[in-house]
């Protein structure tokens, strides 16, 4: 019998031996933590959908179909097409290979490149992308050729990755974590993920009122219907219907970032052969029905039909030709196409593309027309106020744009561009240089694929690497997205919690970040179970950056819903080919109208469908979303909207009639009755029940113990702080080269934890320590969120952490790429025959690289290099005999942990790059930040000697003391409960389950843990009598003391302290520069200045704002009061060396050559000379004053604007202090005069 499969069930207990075994012998069959992989799966599956291996067409295959065939003609571009040769070209297929060593490397035996190697070498993890293209000249036989399109970054653990489906044991042997998740790309050694974005729900017409719509033109109203129509290759095209004041409806779309407006009637008439009567009846209803009496609607539809008459287009072909004529240039179609064909192309490419975008059939055009009419009906209903607006900010009307899909969209656009723009340019260029050549000539046949494609920018993969490394989207079409940057983020491995939350986060889009309104940020009840209400950052991204609830899934593939229409017809839905009667509501599947149904019948159809879908085996997939919107007065537009496609969020709940798992989506959820717990079930109403109330929380929010006891913002803070904790980022630390990594050395597993802690395997990555915490006001050093740490606990290792920094030293000049790789100019090592100081020789090995384990201080050398040049034999030799050194510049002492020698791709280059990993020990110091798991952060204020710490009767001393004042206003009762549970757990040696919502008013947590404590001989409430460690006296009250899990946050004083007396200054102002790194100062701003003023500390104020800032002594002219007119005199006899002797005012002086009747004997004052040799006299009344340097700067700036500043520095200008001189008019009289006026 085969050995038992690795168990994947976890409870909340410690499972020490089981984990130890898993860790020592990673399983060879499957991971023990499948939940972790599930959390990341949407990313990986979306990438896999691009190039699937199951033989089904992937997204790229769909995209190639949509790109279609491109046509080119030779000869003169302005000449008529007839008589010119035609070349048609199309993509047959595009393939992506796994990562491999390039063929020009002759040394590598193992040709596979694993992700770990890419990380260590600071390069990208990518595989070869190649395309098979087929071209045809005139009507000859089609020929095929293959082009390589560069190296495309590959997602780790995707189906193009070597790590796909690897067992934990294999992963470890490939230098990965045993639970490597994948889902990210490696770009230049950095792990990047494409973040999930919220988009409008696809193929669903949304009713929108947006005031900005009125800006489209006169008569435009805020009413509109938006449908984001998605092609099978996941690219989308948004279509909008606008309502105009006069009742008209316009169709709007944007194409290559330009907007176009077309009357909706024109589209309707172009799609199918129809007449006004048919359209009227489709919009209003059959004659004789109730709706015809609705004059509001009939008036408008009549107007719609009437105004269209002005175009005089009656048949389908007329309309299509008209559209084709108008959009020929916009679409950029070949000249051979007729206007009618262009019109057809327009409908194919732009109008409701989800209903057909390749080889569109008549039937598909009819579907498009039906949907367009439905949209018009919804629009009229919206305008009339019969239906409510759909909120585009609610999850109900949203779906998720997966990274892999976005990646495919960009790839598609690049491929399209290569064949349209790139090839056109290359051909034009080619024919310009070879005038006589035509498509049919032999030269062309020789040059065609290779020489011509070489001139195009065919390195498509490089552009995707750029996209991943910067997150910027360079696109002609904009891809129907609202932003162009911020698509990717670095998956920081600060600690495991942070890493995992990157994959669960969903961003609303950076466009919304700039909005002044807060409506998009609101937490709406619709997001229950899909987005976590707790886990969102505070501050600017609040509410925009959400995280998925831990059970929420994203569909990455459509489910097979082909049988659903038949099932609905069997349930009594009328076929869509029939006209709707009366107030029939619509039945739609993936944005395709499949039928009509009476409102009262619709409910039973939906209920039956749901039963069939949960039961299974009826062709109704369980992930099908059955959005039954009941008819209501002024509510959402009624109908039965079903969705089967990808990108939807779904979550599991239990279906009560069958007791089985059902998946619900955000659109249907608001209309369903899902009980949260057993007691919430309303008989006859509730259809579903939650599996667990904690399913609505994200992974991280689930880790907060007893979060239901806390004030809600505290749980939010904990979600933030959990991600800033110094934890254990990885276990494969040896194979990681992150720029900066934080690690706690003495991590522990929490005593109080949720079962999910084990399910997600967080014990592999401990994040903090269990600390004995006393809540007591002791010594005063615990005021204001400070905490006292027991010095002995600290000395035994409490909170000891380490920072790993990786420094890459490359001798290659990255800026100079044009030079070939062969030009080696520098090499590592000491220059031969150069003399090296003994102190340096001690620090480096003979190869010029540092010793592993060495202590490096500021200014120590890290490695040595010298310049080389090739001699006659091509040997690289050093000529100057100078050894250069790379120095360690940081102030903190570090140890060399690893030195990595990095070779080149080809394996033929001498050593050019090394990467040095430095280890900086960071024992906790005063000023370091710690926090419990309840948003209670504090700064270590003292390391208090153990003898002076208070102690209990059993001799127990707290590791941490916090102040009781931290609780009343913050109401983090969960922390008290954790303390209680932790104490009981430690006493009984059990792990405590801290899942929220487990206790009630009848069965309280305090009682549960109180009894445990009592049993262990402790007080029921967790209090203990304590003795002062200083006096030895018993405290008059008993103290609350227990065990709480503490995290050490990454904010440490060593990275933050800033001190300065003198230092670098800004040259223009003379004030200190800013920035800690550069030794700058901290700004004493206006408010600080106000505080100093208010305290009356004038001397301090002067010291901060003048003496320690831009204190400067400056010359000024007392007569004219100017800083700028003064200048030092130049003695004609003494050289320039002499310091400033005398300073004169040029403004007040007179040039000798300008004085008429110059009589040297009568001149008053000395004659002085300026730098130009001009002789002047006068201007002697100068003096030196102390002013802030900026004042002179301001003076100079104002002078440039023609404003003169005059400073009164003479004694005669002083402000008069003392009794005023008597004036002629007495003050009382003046006031009297004013009052009379």
């Amino acid at each position, binding site marked *: 019998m085969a050995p038992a499969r690795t168990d994947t069930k976890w409870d909340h207990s410690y499972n020490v031996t089981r984990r130890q075994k898993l860790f020592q012998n990673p399983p060879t069959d499957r991971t023990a933590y499948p939940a972790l992989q599930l959390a990341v799966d949407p990313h990986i599956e979306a990438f896999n959908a691009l190039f699937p291996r199951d033989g089904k067409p992937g997204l790229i295959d769909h995209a190639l179909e949509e790109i279609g065939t491109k046509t080119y003609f030779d000869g003169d571009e302005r000449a008529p097409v007839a008589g010119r040769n035609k070349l048609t070209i199309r993509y047959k297929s595009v393939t992506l290979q796994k990562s491999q060593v390039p063929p020009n490397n002759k040394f590598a035996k193992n040709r596979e490149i694993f992700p770990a190697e890419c990380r260590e070498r600071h390069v990208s993890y990518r595989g070869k992308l190649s395309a098979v293209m087929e071209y045809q000249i005139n009507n000859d036989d089609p020929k095929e050729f293959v082009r390589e399109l560069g190296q495309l970054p590959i997602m780790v653990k995707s189906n193009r990755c070597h790590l796909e489906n690897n067992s934990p044991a294999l992963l470890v042997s490939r230098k990965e974590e045993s639970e490597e998740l994948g889902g990210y790309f490696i770009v230049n050694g950095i792990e990047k993920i494409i973040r999930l974005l919220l988009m409008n729900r696809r193929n669903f017409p949304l009713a929108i009122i947006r005031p900005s719509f009125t800006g489209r033109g006169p008569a435009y109203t805020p009413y509109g219907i938006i449908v984001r129509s998605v092609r099978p290759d996941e690219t989308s095209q948004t279509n909008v219907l606008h309502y105009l004041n006069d009742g008209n409806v316009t169709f709007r779309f944007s194409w290559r970032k330009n907007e176009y407006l077309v009357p909706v009637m024109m589209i309707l008439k172009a799609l199918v052969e129809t007449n006004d009567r048919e359209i009227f009846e489709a919009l209003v209803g059959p004659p004789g029905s109730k709706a015809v009496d609705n004059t509001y609607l009939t008036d408008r539809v009549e107007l719609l039909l009437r105004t269209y008459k002005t175009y005089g287009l009656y048949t389908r072909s007329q309309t299509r030709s008209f559209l084709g004529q108008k959009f020929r240039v916009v679409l950029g179609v070949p000249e051979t196409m007729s206007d009618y064909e262009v019109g057809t192309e327009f409908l194919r490419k732009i109008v409701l593309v989800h209903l057909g975008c390749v080889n569109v059939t008549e039937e598909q055009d009819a579907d498009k027309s039906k949907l367009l009419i439905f949209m018009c009906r919804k629009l009229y209903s919206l305008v009339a106020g019969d239906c409510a607006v759909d909120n585009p900010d609610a999850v109900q009307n949203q779906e998720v744009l997966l990274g892999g899909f976005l990646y495919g969209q960009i790839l598609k656009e690049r491929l399209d561009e290569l064949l349209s723009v790139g090839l056109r340019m290359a051909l034009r260029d080619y024919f310009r240089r070879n005038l006589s050549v035509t498509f049919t000539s032999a030269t062309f046949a020789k040059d065609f694929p290779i020489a011509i494609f070489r001139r195009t920018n065919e390195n498509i993969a490089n552009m995707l690497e750029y996209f991943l490394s910067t997150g910027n989207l360079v696109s002609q079409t904009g891809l129907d997205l609202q932003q162009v940057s911020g698509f990717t983020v670095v998956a920081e491995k600060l600690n495991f919690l942070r890493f995992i939350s990157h994959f669960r986060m969903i961003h609303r889009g950076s466009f919304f970040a700039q909005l002044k309104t807060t409506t998009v940020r609101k937490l709406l009840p619709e997001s229950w179970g899909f987005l976590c209400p707790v886990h969102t950052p505070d501050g600017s991204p609040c509410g925009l950056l959400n995280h998925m609830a831990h059970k929420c899934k994203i569909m990455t593939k459509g489910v097979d819903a082909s049988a659903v229409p038949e099932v609905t017809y069997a349930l009594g839905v009328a076929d869509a080919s029939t006209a709707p009667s009366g107030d029939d509501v619509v039945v739609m599947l993936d944005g395709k109208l499949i039928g009509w149904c009476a409102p009262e019948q619709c409910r039973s159809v939906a209920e039956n469908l749901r039963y069939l879908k949960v039961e299974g085996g009826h062709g109704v997939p369980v992930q099908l979303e059955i959005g039954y919107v009941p008819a209501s007065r002024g509510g959402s537009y009624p109908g039965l909207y079903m969705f089967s496609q990808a990108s939807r969020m779904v979550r599991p709940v239990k279906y009560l009639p069958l007791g089985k798992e059902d998946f619900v989506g955000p659109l249907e959820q608001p209309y369903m009755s899902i009980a949260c717990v057993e007691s919430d079930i309303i008989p006859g109403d509730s259809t579903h029940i939650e599996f667990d109330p904690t399913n609505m929380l994200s992974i991280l929010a689930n880790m907060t113990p007893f979060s239901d006891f806390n004030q809600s913002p505290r749980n939010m803070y904990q979600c933030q702080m959990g991600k800033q904790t110094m934890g254990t980022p990885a276990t494969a630390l*040896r194979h990681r080269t992150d720029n900066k990594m934080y690690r706690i*050395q003495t991590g522990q597993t929490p005593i109080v934890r949720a079962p999910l802690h084990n399910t997600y395997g967080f014990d592999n990555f401990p994040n903090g320590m269990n600390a004995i915490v006393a809540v007591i006001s002791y010594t005063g050093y615990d005021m204001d969120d400070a905490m006292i740490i027991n*010095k*002995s*606990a600290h*000395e*035994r*290792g409490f909170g*000891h952490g*380490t920072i790993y920094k990786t420094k890459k030293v490359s001798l290659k000049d990255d800026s100079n790429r044009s030079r070939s790789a062969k030009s080696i100019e520098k090499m590592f090592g000491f220059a031969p025959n150069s003399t090296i100081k003994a102190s340096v020789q001690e620090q480096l090995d003979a190869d010029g690289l540092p010793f592993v*384990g060495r202590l490096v201080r500021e200014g120590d050398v890290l490695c040595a290099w010298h310049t080389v040049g090739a001699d006659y034999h091509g040997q690289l030799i050093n000529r100057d005999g100078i050894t250069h050194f790379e120095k360690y510049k940081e102030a903190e002492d570090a*140890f060399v*942990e690893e030195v990595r020698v990095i070779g080149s791709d080809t394996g033929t280059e001498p050593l050019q790059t090394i990467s040095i990993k430095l*280890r900086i*020990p960071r024992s906790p110091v005063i000023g370091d930040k710690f926090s419990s798991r309840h948003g209670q952060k504090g700064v270590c204020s003292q390391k208090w*000697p*153990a*003898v002076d710490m208070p*102690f209990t*009767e*059993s*001799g*127990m*001393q707290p590791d941490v003391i916090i102040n009781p004042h931290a609780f009343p206003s913050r109401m983090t009762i969960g922390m008290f409960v954790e303390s209680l549970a932790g104490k009981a757990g430690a006493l009984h040696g059990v792990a405590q389950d801290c899942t929220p919502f487990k206790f009630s008013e009848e069965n309280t947590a305090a009682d549960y843990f*109180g009894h445990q404590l*009592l049993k262990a*001989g*402790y*007080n*029921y*409430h967790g*209090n203990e*009598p304590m*003795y002062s460690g200083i006096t*030895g*006296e*018993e*405290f*008059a*009250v*008993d103290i609350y003391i227990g065990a709480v899990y503490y995290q050490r946050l990454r904010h440490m004083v060593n990275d933050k302290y800033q001190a300065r007396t003198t230092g670098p200054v800004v040259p223009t102002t003379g004030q200190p520069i800013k920035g800690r790194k550069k030794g700058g100062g901290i700004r004493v701003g206006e408010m600080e200045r106000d505080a100093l003023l208010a305290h009356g500390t004038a001397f301090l104020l002067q010291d901060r704002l003048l003496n320690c800032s831009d204190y400067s002594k400056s010359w000024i002219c007392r007569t004219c009061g100017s800083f700028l007119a003064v200048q030092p005199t130049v003695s004609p006899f003494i050289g320039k060396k002499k310091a400033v002797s005398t300073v004169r005012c040029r403004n007040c002086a007179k040039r000798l050559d300008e004085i008429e009747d110059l009589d040297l004997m009568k001149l008053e004052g000395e004659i002085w000379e300026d730098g130009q040799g001009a002789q002047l006299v006068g201007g002697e009344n100068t003096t030196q004053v102390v002013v802030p340097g900026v004042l002179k700067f301001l003076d100079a700036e104002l002078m440039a604007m023609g404003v003169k500043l005059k400073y009164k520095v003479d004694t005669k200008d002083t402000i008069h*202090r*003392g*009794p*005023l001189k008597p004036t002629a008019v007495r*003050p009382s009289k003046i006031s009297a005069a004013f009052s009379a006026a």
Partner: protein
Amino acid sequence: MLAEIPTMAIDLVQIEDNSTVLADEFIAHRLGMLPLNAEGVENLFYSRDCDCDEYCDRCSVILSLHAKCTGDENMHVSARDLVPSGERISQTLGNPIISDPDGLGPLILKLRPGQEIKLKCIAKKGIAKEHAKWAPSAAIGFEYDPHNKLHHLDLWYEQDAKKEWPPSEYADWEEPPQEGEPFDYDAVPNRFYFNVETAGALPPDAIITEGIKVLQIKLAQMVKDLSEGDGDGNGAYDGPRSPEFGGGGADGWGGGQDPGFTTPYGNGGNQSAWGGAGAGGGTTPYGTTPYGGAGGSSW
């Protein structure tokens, strides 16, 4: 007992070779935490009192560790593998405490095949005030008045103090308070319960006696200081201290420190520093306000 009884602990570690997964300083920290036999430590000098430059046999014990994993299983290196060397005051002083049944002692580190560790440790005498590794005991239980007869403490309870506060383990040793017994406010605690748990370096009884010894020395020193030092109150103590208040003019602070309750404006009373010629306290430094009339009078 917690902080001032001298014991032995590894203080310096000279690492020669370390190819383990643990960092040097991390191993050094672990070594420091090992309890070492401290019996007879009184015969050892403190390193700072010793004549030697860095360390010598009279103020330290040298332990060395050299382990290499040659098999293909992980190897455990424990306290047993620390080998004392050099001249020692006694054959037991500084030996690692090994009390587990297998005789291995605390685990120091684990070696993967091929890894090696070679280092020399210098164990010194010290007290836990300096570092927790010199602590002879883990925790000292201390209690008096188990029935709270003296009412030094308000025991907080919600419903029933008896139910919520379990009796102390020493409660049987003393008479419980009788029903209606009057409160004796003159009573003082006279019976103290200690619970000493050793970390291994010294047997518990030795910790008690050593503790008393340290206390005696301290008291004796204090008595000595008090009786000796007339005029030179702080005689033996020459550490940093705060300046004495009102200690006359000759305390090195130059020109008689003021007692701390006068303002720098001197001459007390309600006169301001501005000469105080004006009426009352309402004068501005300018003597008069700019609005005519004498200062303060026109308002």
